[in-house]
C-alpha cells in the first residue's frame, strides 16, 4: 500500500469517490464544475510545491515560475488559430519545463535555505517582468488562447476539452496520477534518500549519496508537474497573464500547502480546498473578506500543529 497512514487511506479514497461522482449530479456547464476544476488544478500545483518544500526540503518562493511557464509555453509554442494535440503539447511543455528546471536547478541548488528561497523568488520575478514588459506576449494584460487543443490518441478521441465536464475529469485524473506518482516516488529508495537528505544533508553525503543529483531530480520533477498545472489552468480559461508568475502566486500555494499539512502530499488537496472554500465563503459574505480570511489563517496556524492533515491524523490514527 502506498498510503502509509490510516488517515490517507480514509481521506484519499473518500475524496476521489466524491469527486468522481459529484459532477453527475450537476449540470455539465455548472459553475461548480468549473470552480472545482480550478481548485483541482491548483491542488496539482500545490502538491508539486509540497513535494519540493515539505519533502525534499527545497523551500522555494518561486514555484509560480513554472506555473506561468506552463501557460506561456503553450501560447508561445502553439500556432494561434489551430488546434494542436493535447498529449503532444503536455509532453512538450513538461519536458521543456523540466529542461529549464534542470539548467536553473544545476545553478541555484548550490544555495541553501533562505538563499535558495530568495534565488527562486528572483527567477520567478524576472520571468514576471519579462512577460510583463514583452509586447509580443501581451505585456501586463496577458494573452488569449483562442483554440483549445484536441485530445485524440492515434485518431481516437474520447475527451472534449470544450466540455467542462470532460475537462473536470481530465483534471481529476491528473490529480490522482500526481498523487500516486509522488507517493510512489517517496516510498521508493529514492524517496528515502531524499528524506534523509532533508533531515541531515551532511550525513547523507557522508554515506555516499550525491545529494545534489537527488535534489536536482526532485526539482525537475516538481517543476515539470507545476508547469503541467499551469498549462491546465491556462487551458481552462484560455487565458494567460504575467500575474501567474508573481510571488503572491507562489506564496498562496505555499500557504495552501502548509495549511493542508506540509510534507503530507495529500494535504495539498485539503489545504487547497479549504483555502479556496473559505475564500469563496467569506467573499460572498462581506466586502471585508480579507480580514476574515487573514484571521482564519492565523487561527488555524495557532490551533493546528501540522496543518489540517496533522489534525486529522491526530483524530484518526489509533
Amino acid at each position, binding site marked *: 500500500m502506498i498510503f502509509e497512514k490510516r488517515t490517507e487511506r480514509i481521506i484519499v479514497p473518500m475524496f476521489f469517490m466524491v469527486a468522481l461522482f459529484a459532477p453527475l449530479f450537476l449540470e455539465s456547464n455548472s459553475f461548480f464544475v468549473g470552480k472545482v476544476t480550478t481548485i483541482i488544478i491548483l491542488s496539482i500545483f500545490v502538491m508539486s510545491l509540497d513535494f519540493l518544500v515539505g519533502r525534499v526540503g527545497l523551500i522555494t518562493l518561486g514555484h509560480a515560475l513554472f506555473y506561468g511557464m506552463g501557460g506561456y509555453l503553450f501560447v508561445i509554442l502553439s500556432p494561434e488559430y489551430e488546434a494542436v494535440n493535447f498529449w503532444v503539447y503536455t509532453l512538450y511543455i513538461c519536458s521543456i519545463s523540466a529542461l529549464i528546471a534542470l539548467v536553473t536547478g544545476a545553478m541555484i541548488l548550490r544555495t541553501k535555505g533562505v538563499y535558495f528561497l530568495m534565488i527562486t523568488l528572483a527567477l520567478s520575478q524576472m520571468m514576471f517582468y519579462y512577460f510583463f514588459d514583452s509586447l509580443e506576449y501581451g505585456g501586463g494584460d496577458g494573452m488569449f488562447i483562442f483554440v483549445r487543443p484536441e485530445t485524440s490518441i492515434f485518431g481516437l478521441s474520447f475527451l472534449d476539452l470544450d466540455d467542462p465536464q470532460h475537462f473536470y475529469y481530465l483534471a481529476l485524473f491528473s490529480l490522482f496520477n500526481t498523487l500516486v506518482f509522488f507517493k*510512489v*516516488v517517496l516510498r*521508493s*529508495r*529514492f524517496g*528515502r*534518500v531524499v*528524506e*534523509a537528505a532533508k*533531515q*541531515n544533508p*551532511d*550525513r*547523507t*553525503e*557522508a*554515506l*555516499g*549519496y*550525491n*545529494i545534489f543529483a*537527488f535534489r536536482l*531530480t526532485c526539482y525537475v520533477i516538481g517543476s515539470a508537474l507545476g508547469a503541467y498545472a499551469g498549462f491546465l489552468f491556462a487551458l481552462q480559461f484560455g487565458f494567460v497573464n504575467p500575474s501567474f508568475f508573481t510571488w503572491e502566486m507562489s506564496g498562496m500555494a505555499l500557504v495552501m500547502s502548509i495549511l493542508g499539512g506540509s510534507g503530507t502530499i495529500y494535504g495539498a488537496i485539503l489545504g487547497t480546498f479549504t483555502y479556496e472554500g473559505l475564500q469563496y465563503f467569506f467573499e460572498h459574505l462581506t466586502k471585508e473578506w480579507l480580514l476574515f480570511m487573514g484571521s482564519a489563517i492565523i487561527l488555524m496556524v495557532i490551533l493546528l500543529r501540522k496543518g489540517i492533515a496533522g489534525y486529522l491524523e491526530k483524530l484518526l490514527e489509533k
Partner: protein
Amino acid sequence: MINDIVLETEALSKHWGGIKAVDEVSLQFRDRLLHGVVGPNGAGKSTLLNMLCGTLKPTSGCVFHKGQRIDALKPWKFVQRGIGRSFQKTNIYPEMTCLENCAISAQRRFGGNFNLFVSRHSNKLVRKAAEQALAQVGLEDRTHAIAAEISYGEQRQLEIAMVLAIDPCILLLDEPMAGMGHDESLRIIELLKELKKTYCIVLVEHDMDAIFELSDQLTVLDNGRHLITSSVDEVRADPRVKDAYLGAEDEEEQTA
C-alpha cells in the same frame, strides 16, 4: 607489504586562515590493521579524517587510495570506494527510527536508488544489513525507537552502527567511544578487535585504555604536525608524547 597500504597521505595540509590545522602530514594506513591517531585537542585529528573521507579539501598535499589519487573527488565518491567514517559530533537522522537510520546507510550498496521499483528481496537484504549493524553495536532493543529520543550514549552507538552498515573496507572512526558508558565501550572495543581482522581502521580516540589495547600502530599529532608513528609501546615511552599529550600516566590516580 607495500601492497597492503590502502590509504596514504603525502604532505597533507589544511590551513584555516593562519591556523595550520594539519601541516604536511604523511601517513600510511594498512589493510587489516587498526591505526590509532591521538593528540591533544585541536591537534588536527578530525581535520585529518575529514580530508581522508573527502568532506574537506586539503590546502595542499594528496590522498591516495590503493595508489590512486582521490583528494579532488566529491565526498560521496569516497564512500563508493569503500571509505566510511563516523563523526565526533553525533550526526544522525533525528526523526527516523534507528533501523531507518541504518537502512539509509545500507541501501546504497544494494543499488536501485534512482529506481522507483525494487524487488522485495533486495529490500529484505537492506533490512537485514541494517539490523545486523544495530546488533553489532548492541542497539537491538532500540530498533524502532526514534533517534532523537534515545539517550546520548545510545546515539553514539547508532553513529557507529551507521558506518558499519555502509560496509566499508576502510573505517574512519572519530572518537567512537566518547559519551559511551563503560560497558558499551567494552563492547565496541571487542567489535573493533573483530573488525580489524578484515578492515583497515583509523581510530581517533581519547580513551587511552581503548587506544592502547586496540592499536597496531599509533600516530601522534600535535598542533597539526606529525609527531611520531610507531608501536604502542614506543609511543608510550616517548617523552615528547608524555609532555604534549598523555601527561603522567594513570592520570586518574593523580587527581584530587
